[in-house]
């Protein structure tokens, strides 16, 4: 088997006094989708941000295609160009059109010519069902459309892996479906993904493996059916039953 696409080894991260990650190990193979579940504040976002080098880790290492990326000698910009990140709050650039949002990486990070970047940008938007919205600014788009533009933007850089940070949490319930459909579509195409999510049914459907993050550690990991139906750990059971009470499963 080839080297895993993303490998996290014994990563720790603290914000001041608060220990957010206390030794996380995670392996994501080619074409694999791993769902990260866990309570708010369990470190899901922080872990994704550490993989994309948006945060500096304290200890341990992260590998991308077998190469260490958390070495001071590694250029973080070059690493981020090989990964895609989708934010909970979309974080689209409000002064740019949808098309410009999906073109900017192609144009300035991957140095494509204007015509080429524009052609690819239009194709990307069309692919995510956004043809006709090219010239709209983000604030003229619905939340679901904005998040799909954000997914197109992250996917546009032909990433080795996509990191999705609670991509449906900011959406009105009726808009969740269209965004999940876009992610499902990426999975069908074999995109390697790490998906932090609160949508357990979605995790069950799309993920090859579910990892439960608790107090900065991955307490258990396995196929969705196993982790979600027959969790081994007491903490996992408690987390899932709280979701069940809240009607979120």
């Amino acid at each position, binding site marked *: 088997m080839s080297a895993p696409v993303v490998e996290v080894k014994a990563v720790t991260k603290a914000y001041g006094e608060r220990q957010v990650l206390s030794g996380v190990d995670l392996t994501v193979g080619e074409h694999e989708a791993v769902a990260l579940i866990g309570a708010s504040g369990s470190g899901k976002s922080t872990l994704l941000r550490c993989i994309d080098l948006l945060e500096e880790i304290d200890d341990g290492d992260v590998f991308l295609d077998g190469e260490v990326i958390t070495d001071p000698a590694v250029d973080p910009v070059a690493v981020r160009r090989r990964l895609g990140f989708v934010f909970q709050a979309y974080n689209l650039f409000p002064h740019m059109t949808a098309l410009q949002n999906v073109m900017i990486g192609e144009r300035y990070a991957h140095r494509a010519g204007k015509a080429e970047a524009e052609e690819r940008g239009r194709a990307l938007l069309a692919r995510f069902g956004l043809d006709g919205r090219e010239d709209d600014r983000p604030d003229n788009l619905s939340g679901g459309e904005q998040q799909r533009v954000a997914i197109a933007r992250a996917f546009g*850089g032909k990433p080795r892996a996509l990191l999705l940070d609670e991509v449906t949490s900011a959406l009105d319930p009726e808009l969740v479906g269209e965004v999940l459909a876009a992610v499902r579509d990426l999975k069908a195409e074999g995109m390697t993904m790490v998906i932090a999510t609160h949508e357990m049914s979605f995790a069950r459907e799309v993920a090859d493996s579910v990892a439960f993050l608790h107090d900065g550690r991955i307490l258990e990991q396995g196929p969705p059916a196993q982790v979600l139906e027959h969790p081994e750990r007491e903490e996992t059971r408690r987390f899932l039953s709280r979701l069940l009470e809240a009607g979120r499963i």
Partner: protein
Amino acid sequence: MNAAAAIPASERRLEREVAKRRRARRGAAIAALSSLLILGGLAALVLTSSGWPEVRETFFSWSEFKNAFPEVLEGFWLDVKVFMGVEAAVLVIALALALVKISSSAGLFPLRLLSIVFVDISRGIPTVLMVYLIGFGIPALQIVKPAPDPAILGAIALTISYSGYVAEVYRAGIRSVHRGQHDAALAVGLTHSQAMRLVILPQGIRRVAPPLLNDFISLQKDAALISIIGPIEAFRAAQILQGENFNFTPLIAAALLYLAVTVPLARVVDRMGGSEGAVR
């Protein structure tokens, strides 16, 4: 629009519309009456004062105005050249100061220190004193011979004075852009400087355009300060004519010229402030 028109207006709705119109009419009547009373009262107070005939002659003489206007206008042309030049210089220098002050790169440490000192000095010294110091200090150094034109020295002093303020305005704008924008820019693979240039600055500058233009209104008036080191701009030209003819009308002419450039800019700023919510 169409959907609303399609619904036939009910009794209640018509009632409300009548009441709304009545309120609007009453409001307009009250505004007109109170303006008439207050403005009329003020005018009456001035016009019936015992000194008015004299003031009218010494401040608002039409013949003096016609006589002085060309010379004051010529002086004002110097003001315009000075503030336009200073505005252009300030926009660039202040941005550089803000960027240096905000950066965290080790190589820029000395520059960062310098820019902090510069901003402190430039904001801390009264503009009139700055004009004096530069206007008389630079020629005394005798670095450039012959001594530079005092109007240019005055412009340099104004540039120093305003760069500090405007740098802080820029910095506030840059700071106001949400962190997530920077994260997203890095996540699509941009470098820090590309993120600043393509994502942060365009948003930050747009947000501080009104306070920035406000500083320019202030600068357009302060152009008159260069007169203390010699150049004959509008205020100085008017003062000279006033001294010659013992009539203050030329100063009114100068005041009107300053208003002619500051009021339109003020309206632009007002409009920007008004549409801010609509922008986003």
